């Protein structure tokens, strides 16, 4: 009681980003949300593709021109990384949902694996895109 009545005593803060040392599982968790929100844009682009296709050759050509512009390509590369990251980390979450892979060593290793996969798969897809005339 004496502690509680002491004026101006600082209450304990719940942990927040600024008081935590960054570690990989935390970064992986935040990245899952960030890439998920980014993929909202990807789905809207996919819807725009379908709508432009249904609107005729001119609308479709305009859509393709926007996507092939420098900004369009940068956005598409970012969305490629987001997609492969969210896919791999989503599978990581599905494994967790079965109750497996929760110990710290495994969780750290799977986070590294997911990040490495996202980068490798993105580069591979863009190499394939360049070779097949997609970009």
């Amino acid at each position, binding site marked *: 009681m004496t502690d509680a009545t002491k004026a101006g005593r600082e209450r304990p803060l719940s942990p927040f980003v600024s008081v935590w040392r960054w570690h990989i599982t935390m970064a992986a968790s935040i990245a899952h*949300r960030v890439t*998920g*929100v980014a*993929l*909202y844009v990807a*789905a*809207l682009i*996919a*819807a725009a*593709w*379908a*709508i432009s*296709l*249904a*609107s*005729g*050759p001119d609308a*479709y*050509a305009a859509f*393709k021109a926007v*996507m092939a512009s420098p900004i369009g390509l940068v956005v598409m590369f970012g969305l490629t990384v987001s*997609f492969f990251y969210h*896919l791999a980390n*989503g*599978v990581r*979450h*599905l494994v967790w*949902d079965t109750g497996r892979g929760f110990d710290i060593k495994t969780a750290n290793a799977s986070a590294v694996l997911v990040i490495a996969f996202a980068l490798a798969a993105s580069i591979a*897809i863009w190499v*394939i*895109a360049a070779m*097949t*005339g*997609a*970009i």
Partner: protein
Amino acid sequence: MSSYRTPLSRARGLGSAKHGVGDWISERVGAIALVPLTLWAVFAVLRLAAGDYGFAVAWITQPLNAVLMALTLVVSFWHMQAGLRVVIEDYVETGVGKTALLVLNLFVCGLAGALAVFSILKVALSGA
């Protein structure tokens, strides 16, 4: 009268105990479906990006392509709606603004998804 109800009867009849498990399972089933669907979609995008309008029309008139593309979009918009809903619920303070954002999220996903599916069906069925 409410004092005659036991805590168990309240838990059974109200709140998250009613449909939380169903929501949880449908989120996972949607996520599992998206693994093969979106991997297929990546290769579809590669082919479509290399082709012109005529190629895209011919491509989408094939039943398998039209159906897989429509399914990918429907399940994706469903998954997105559920995902962004959790983000809004976590970060936005309870109130009218939060409710408005949740409804907006649902409407954007529903509208974009419906427009995309209708567009695919239109081209797939009419050939242009």
